[in-house]
């Protein structure tokens, strides 16, 4: 607060000199050309912020998502980072460690009631905060499950591994589906660690040992991980799910068209399912493979760049943006989960009885952050390759060992990634 007051005082002095001495703050955003209302909403927040006070003018620049991280990396090397950045949750520790970002310095009381996945912390400090989170669920149809005598799982009592494997076999035996389960193998990239590492965690393993984040030995190649790997390979060996060469179009529409009985997919894909199946649509929690049901947490968030000369202005903008009305507006516009329960009650889909209400509960109860370490961006790629290779029939133990070696070597090459 003290900083803020000083800055305001400075700004007032500056204003006294000229008639319009608003300081420009640059803001970079990843959603250029997004299909939904995202871009328009960001513009709206910026316009309303600029109109609400006279110290700062935020200037927005949007990038296509695929080019965004590269643009930030290049800007950092050239020393031309904007004041305010948006950053994908699991990437944030890397940017903080690489000195692209500085701690947000926000009053943490303002983040009360936020979903854990919407707050980005690194080395004990908050660096970023998100207006929304995303959640993954097992999409299913009530009629199909009831027809085949499969119990409908609940948040309190999710499917066990035996139940889940049994359900897949039952659905496969009906012969009504090309595959009983659609995992989304066509979505390469971040989808693999985001959607599948929670299975590994539920088995009792992890991508990296979270105690200090200095090794993957034992976490990614221990008994639990090997058991997970064998289960994973079995899904493809036994034709339970389409493999890495799944057609991308089938991923988008296969479940709605009835090619698959179950689909492991995110809340952003939920509305077409509701439109098609209405009350028959079910969004089920992740199965419990022994260590509790888990889904991935964290989506895109806002933070302040390390080189910003006006972190107080940047912080003021972020505090402005996380008002409940914007959380609700983004949720309505994009279908994503609002970061607080208060905001959820004002949305179309996440209010009580809303079509996607269940996703808020999933996010609140099951979400686990991906490993909070600067090495995550490398570990995610190694994990993705290991899972693709195992799905394609590679030896489970050798593949996981190789992944562990690569992750450990990377941690070593980066002198432990600065954990303290």
């Amino acid at each position: 607060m003290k900083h803020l007051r000083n800055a305001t005082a400075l700004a007032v002095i500056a204003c006294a000199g000229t008639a319009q001495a608003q300081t420009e703050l640059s803001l970079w955003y990843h959603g250029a050309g997004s299909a939904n209302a995202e871009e328009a909403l960001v513009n709206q927040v910026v316009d309303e912020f600029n109109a609400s006070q006279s110290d700062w003018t935020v200037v927005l620049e949007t990038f296509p998502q695929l080019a965004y991280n590269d643009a930030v990396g290049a800007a950092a090397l050239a020393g031309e980072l904007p004041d305010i950045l948006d950053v994908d949750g699991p990437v944030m520790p890397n940017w903080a460690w690489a000195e692209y970002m500085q701690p947000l310095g926000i009053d943490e009381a303002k983040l009360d009631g936020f979903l854990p996945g919407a707050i980005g912390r690194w080395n004990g400090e908050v660096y970023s905060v998100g207006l929304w989170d995303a959640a993954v669920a097992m999409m299913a149809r009530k009629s199909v499950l009831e027809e085949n005598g499969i119990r409908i799982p609940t948040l309190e009592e999710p499917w066990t591994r035996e139940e889940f494997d049994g359900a897949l076999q039952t659905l496969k035996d009906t012969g009504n589906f090309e595959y009983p389960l659609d995992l989304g193998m066509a979505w390469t990239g971040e989808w693999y660690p985001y959607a599948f590492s929670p299975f590994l965690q539920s088995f009792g393993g992890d991508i990296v040992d979270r105690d200090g984040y200095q090794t993957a030995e034992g976490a990614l190649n221990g008994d639990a991980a090997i058991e997970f790997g064998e289960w994973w390979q079995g899904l493809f060996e036994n034709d339970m799910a389409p493999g890495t060469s799944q057609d991308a179009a089938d991923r988008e529409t296969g479940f709605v068209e009835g090619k698959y009985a179950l689909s492991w997919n995110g809340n952003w894909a939920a509305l077409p399912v509701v439109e098609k199946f209405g009350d028959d649509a079910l969004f089920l929690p992740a199965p419990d493979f022994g260590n509790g049901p888990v889904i991935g947490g964290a989506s895109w968030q806002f933070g302040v760049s390390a080189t910003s000369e006006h972190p107080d202005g940047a912080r003021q903008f972020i505090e402005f943006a996380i008002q409940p009305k914007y959380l609700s507006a983004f949720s309505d516009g994009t279908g994503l989960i609002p970061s607080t329960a208060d905001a959820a009650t004002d949305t179309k889909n996440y209010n009580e009885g809303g079509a996607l209400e269940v996703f808020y509960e999933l996010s609140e109860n099951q979400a686990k952050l991906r490993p909070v370490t600067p090495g995550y961006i490398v570990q995610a790629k190694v994990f993705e390759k290991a899972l693709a290779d195992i799905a394609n029939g590679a030896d489970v133990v050798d593949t996981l060992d190789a992944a562990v070696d690569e992750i450990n070597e990377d941690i070593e090459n980066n002198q432990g990634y600065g954990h303290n």
Partner: protein
Amino acid sequence: MASKLTRANRTGWLMAFPGVALMTLFIIVPFFLAFAFSLTNQRLASPNAAEYVGFENYSDLLGVAVFTLEPERDDSGAVVRDGDGEIEYPRLRNFTRNNPDYPNLAGKREWFSWQSGENRVVVLASDVVFMKALVNTFTFVLFVAPIQAGLALCLALLINQKLYGINIFRTIYFMPVVVSIVVVSLLWRFIYSPGDGLLNNVLGWLTFGAFEGIDWLGRTDTALPSIMAMSIWQGVGFQMVIWLAGLQNISPTLYEAGEIEGASKWQTFRYITWPGLRNTAVLILIVITMQAFALFAQIDVMTQGGPLDSTQVLVFQAVERGYGKQDISGGSTISVILFVIVLSISLVQRYLTREK
């Protein structure tokens, strides 16, 4: 000499300046940077300063070891066999992981192996993915260079005729070259799509449904050949135009003379066309080889190196490591190795095709 070279050619140097400057900035300087980076542990983004590590990056990529696995034996010394009668061996990880007795195997992985009596001889590599990329890249070049050059020559001969509307054919053959390789790769992903992809449908229709759909890009034995076929189709038009330029340089009087002497079509090709294309052939061979070594976009769009590394190639690995995994030194090392390979092959080609 030097002063005369600069003074007498001042205009020449001036005209060359933009090109030379750009090449220096974007090709020569980055090359020396890559060589320098390959001797350090430079990262793309890191608060840690880069350190000089000598040739460690090279040994991490190129390290190879041979190891003989002896079969498991029971207490009486007899070889243990599993249910199918196959000899059982101890797992390699017992030797390669945390085993101080075998320091030369630490961190290495099985690349390939063969049977030798009761024993199994295993070749291990420090970086199996790199080794596979190396082999795949060479395989790609060995198939693509001759087939693409030959096909391009056939097409050039076909369209080097004075027929009505021949330009339409020239345009059609050249079209794939003009379209962005990324777009072509995306389209071919649909063509190769498993299940109801275009290729599977056509083959099914031609065989009256007897053909069973193949997952072209999803099988280790068809993925690389599929990419080869698509690459040949995409690039053949460019080579065709170079051949065509060569063909049209051959004096028509030679053909007339041949006709008067009663040469057959084959004799005309063998003794007039082919010798006349000599320089063109050298150019095409070198250009195709260099292009084939630079294979990247198709892999990036279509397979990402999978399934099971069957389509890993050097440039894709260099980019994947340098940018994807932020390991600039590793990516640079691969680039330097690739440079040395391409340079040596080009020199050998120059030597073999020299004027005698």
